[in-house]
């Protein structure tokens, strides 16, 4: 058993996620006692404060990379950058949800605390260098996410989404645990350093079984083919704000977990799992893009598009170098901005009774709400990977990482996939700009916070596309320390 002193390093490393968790609890208590008037934003601001505290703690730790709790909990560049992504997605979701949930008749004010709990779970996952801690992080995040998916109790879609998410999530957790057990049995340890040491002597069958089981669990969370079947249904069923949070936060946490696990924990096995991940990555992006082609509903199309992007991310992981790790991190950041933005626009489209997220509803948007159409065009162009927007930069780094270590076919398949993806992103742009609106104009509701969030996402997408150097250097340096 590792004797773990509880010195200052430990306090500092747990500060970020615990502050967020505490913030969540305070917000929960506050929501019970606060008055019932609709449209109150106090709970939301309270939660934002919790996030701010987490952000402050994360920034304070920037630069002082060290592993606490005997190396099982790493507060290094990777987890700090990951924290930024999680906090960003959480706060954007909360701003976007403000007003959106009331208009749907959802008075449950525990929405914001749940987001905080999920975010703290993600932060644990981001920093975990021990399978058990990873498991705990996943569970904290997932439980909150299951409830969030079903937050709109009266909508059959939302409850069905929550049910599916829960059943399959729990199912995946069992595989995760069984995988941990396999590794524990094979290497006698659950922390990454212990595992690395025990890999040589471990029986090959146990290792393969263990990794396969872990891939199932993490694959489920990251929506990698063949474990992605739940994503379209859950994303479509859940309220759009929750979908945004899930498609960015949860996916980012899953990928940081996968990246850390494979690049750090299972580094020596690199040559073995590389081929498997290569196949899964290509499968994921192809299935994601091809199925997205035929979607009539924009929200469901974005769900499939997020699967495709999972494919691109997995390609980065498969390459397995520090460059590709950095590329994955940066891709996550760019992906966060554009996907949050895209879902945000769908939220803005929705009115109380009708979500308006079908392709027909997008027709003639440029005539009715040019600014919204302009923002959506920026997000979609970035998702397609058009320079100088963020999406292109993210894709470029993944391709560069792949090409630099000789994975030509992976790079070629990736860029060809994004050419196919261009079709369905374009079809939305064409609907907005080049078709006349059908039916009468829905009664739009003015949502200042949502507008602010969209503006932030758009600015982020453009700026990250124009000036990505700083972030890339940080991400690459962060990964250099991990991949030994």
């Amino acid at each position, binding site marked *: 058993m590792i004797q773990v002193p509880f010195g200052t390093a430990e306090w500092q490393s747990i500060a970020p996620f615990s502050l967020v968790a505490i913030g969540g609890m305070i917000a929960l208590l506050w929501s019970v006692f606060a008055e019932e008037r609709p449209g109150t934003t106090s709970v939301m601001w309270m939660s934002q404060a919790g996030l701010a505290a987490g952000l402050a703690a994360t920034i304070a730790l920037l630069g002082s990379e060290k592993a606490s709790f005997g190396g099982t909990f790493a507060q290094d560049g990777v987890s700090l950058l990951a924290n930024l992504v999680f906090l960003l997605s959480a706060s954007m979701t909360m701003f976007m949800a403000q007003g959106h949930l009331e208009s749907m008749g959802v008075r449950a004010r525990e929405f914001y605390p749940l987001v905080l709990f999920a975010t703290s779970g993600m932060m644990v996952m981001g920093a975990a260098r021990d399978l058990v801690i990873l498991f705990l992080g996943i569970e904290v995040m997932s439980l909150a996410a299951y409830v969030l998916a079903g937050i709109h109790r009266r909508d059959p879609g939302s409850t069905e989404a929550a*049910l*599916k998410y829960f*059943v*399959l999530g729990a*199912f*995946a957790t069992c*595989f995760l645990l069984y995988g941990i057990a396999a590794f524990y049995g094979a290497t006698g340890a659950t922390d990454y350093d212990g595992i690395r040491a025990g890999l040589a002597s471990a029986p090959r*069958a146990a290792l*393969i*079984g263990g*990794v*396969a*089981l872990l*891939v*199932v669990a993490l*694959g*489920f969370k990251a929506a990698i*083919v*063949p*474990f992605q*079947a*739940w994503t*379209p*249904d859950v994303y479509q069923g859940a309220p759009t704000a929750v979908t945004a949070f899930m498609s960015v936060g949860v996916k980012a946490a899953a990928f940081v977990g996968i990246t850390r696990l494979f690049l750090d924990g299972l580094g020596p096995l690199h040559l*073995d*799992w590389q*081929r*498997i991940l290569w*196949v*899964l990555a290509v499968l994921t992006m192809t*299935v994601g893009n*091809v*199925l*997205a*082609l*035929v979607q009539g509903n924009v929200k469901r199309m974005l769900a499939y598009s997020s699967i495709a992007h999972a494919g691109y991310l997995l390609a980065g992981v498969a390459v397995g170098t520090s460059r590709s790790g950095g590329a994955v991190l940066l891709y996550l950041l760019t992906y966060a901005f554009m996907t949050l933005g895209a879902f945000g626009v769908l939220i803005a489209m929705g009115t109380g009774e009708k979500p308006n997220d079908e392709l027909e509803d997008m027709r003639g948007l440029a005539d009715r709400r040019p600014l919204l159409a302009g923002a959506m065009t920026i997000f979609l162009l970035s998702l397609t990977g058009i320079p100088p927007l963020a999406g292109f930069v993210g894709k470029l780094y993944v391709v560069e990482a792949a090409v630099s270590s000789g994975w030509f076919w992976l790079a070629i398949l990736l860029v060809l996939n994004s050419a*196919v993806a261009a*079709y369905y992103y374009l079809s939305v742009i064409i609907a907005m700009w080049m078709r006349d609106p059908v039916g009468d104009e829905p009664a739009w509701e003015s949502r200042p916070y949502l507008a602010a969030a969209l503006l932030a996402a758009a600015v982020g997408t453009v700026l990250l596309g124009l000036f990505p150097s700083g972030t890339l250097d940080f991400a690459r340096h962060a990964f250099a320390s991990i991949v030994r």
Partner: protein
Amino acid sequence: MTDQPTTLLRLIPLLPLAGAAICTFAATRNLRSVAKIVGPGSVLAAFLVVLAAVARFWQLPVGSALIDRVWNWIDVSALQVDLAFRLDALTSVMLLVITGVGFLIHLYSLGYMHDDPDLPRFFAYLNLFTASMLVLVLAASLPVLFIGWEGVGLCSYLLIGFWWAETANADAGRKAFVANRVGDAAFLAGMFMLFWGMAAAGAPSLAFADVNRMAPQLAARSPWLVTGACLLLLTGATGKSAQIPLYVWLPDAMAGPTPVSALIHAATMVTAGVYMIARLSHLFVQSPGAMEVVATIGAVTAFFAATIALVQRDLKKILAYSTISQIGYMILGVGVGAFSAGVFHLMTHAFFKALLFLAAGSVMHALHGELDVFKMGGLGKHLPITSKTFLVGTLAIAGVPPLAAFFSKDMVLEAAFMHGHPVLWFLGLAAAGLTAFYMFRAYFLAFAGESRMDPHVEAHVHESPSNMTIPLVVLAVLSIVGGWVGLPHGFLWGDRFGEYLAPVFAHVGGHGGEHAEAGGATPLLLMLLTVSVAAGAIFAAWKMYGAPSTLPDEMEARFPKAFALLRGKYWVDEIYDALVLRPYAATSRFFWKVVDSAVIDGVVNGVGTVLSGAGESGRRLQTGNVQHYAFAMLLGAVLTAGAWWLWR
């Protein structure tokens, strides 16, 4: 031979060009009077400048030339082309013909087009044509010649389709342009071959002086290159000068107004090919093979066209085939090496063929567009001047001494015979006979005998106004006098024309001077032979068409197939249409409909449908049932582990 720089030559093409610009402006404002003055005036001015230039040229020592470098046109690494005009003996002859005959035709057009609303536009095109022709003739290098070459093609397109209201005229114009373009493509290829040959020989240039100077070296280095280039240039010439195989456009070109036919399709444009070959005489001489081909084409075309003319009913069509035939003579002349003979016939032909066309024009003018000789007859009394001048032209073309063609045609035939081309000579002789026959057939049918015109047309047939008849008379005089410049060797003052052109064709390789010294008697014999053949043909024509007789019908009855063949013009047009045009249209439609839309677009759209098909089938897998998804996860886990296990 030095080139004397001058700035006079650029004026010659510039004046008609300016005329064309002014007439175009006049056309937009519909100022008929301005066009009437500027049109002929600019050509007259050009004629005067030509006289001045020729006078200056004559002061120069023999063999030198006037050169006028306007500016450096194209200058890219090895290719260096100046927009330069050069005047030497050959050019002077051509200039005099173009501006001289041209001016007469412009004058004639005043009358002919008098009541045509589009007169200014007509003169604009005519002036533009004259300018292009002058550029062609004055050019000092092949590319500049090509500017004029295609410029005249453009003007002939515009002028043939001048009365654009009927699609037939416009189609004839297009046919002319495209046929010319086929020749021009070959011309271009010839130019390129020549250029790179010259570049390899160390002097990359397309100027005539350089080409002629380097010709022997070129032939020594790569004879196939010289022959190839000459043959290509010849193809270009056949396109422009309407020889076999690219002559088909000329008969249709008669759709244009008659002055156009006279100027372009008789006097000037169609002779461009002959001029080009004469200008590159030193090059052509280096390749006996090419010369042989040139001569053969000339002779065969002469005979071939003459046969068709025998049975034509339309007066202008007869003259058109006659032109093709006469140019055949010129090509034959240059083909056998008798360059000055060819050019001499070119000059005389310009006179009498222009005369014949203008006369036909005044007949048309009088009969309000009627051209079928079988609907004329007895016009002699109604159109005294026209019929007399037409007779002079007919005599000239038939080769009756002392008129023009007798000397020029004879010189060509004699050269053909002397330079060892007996077969071609015989073809030429036969063609001469046929020419005499069909010309007098036309004359007798139109002007002699009793009138077959329908009465009310005959009622007000009247002679054309003076501005039409004066040019006829002048041309008649020229047709008579024109030949005397080049008398047979030793007769009176001999071949002044040949001597004048000698420096241009001076060291024309092995072929030496114009007149082989062998056998003083044979030329005389040949001359007698041609005259007697011509006389016989005239008598035969008189027998059949002069006096009323049933002979033509009997002839037709006895040889129905022959007459049908000739009247169908050997169905060359139909053959071209079947072999070239229709397959081309079919393949282009095939390319469009099948290759482009079905195959390529099919593949492009196919990729789209395949992908969305896969999407549809993938979509069915998404059943929505939780347990199916769980099963998929389990299956995924098993497959991953299995694959890894097998994938050693």
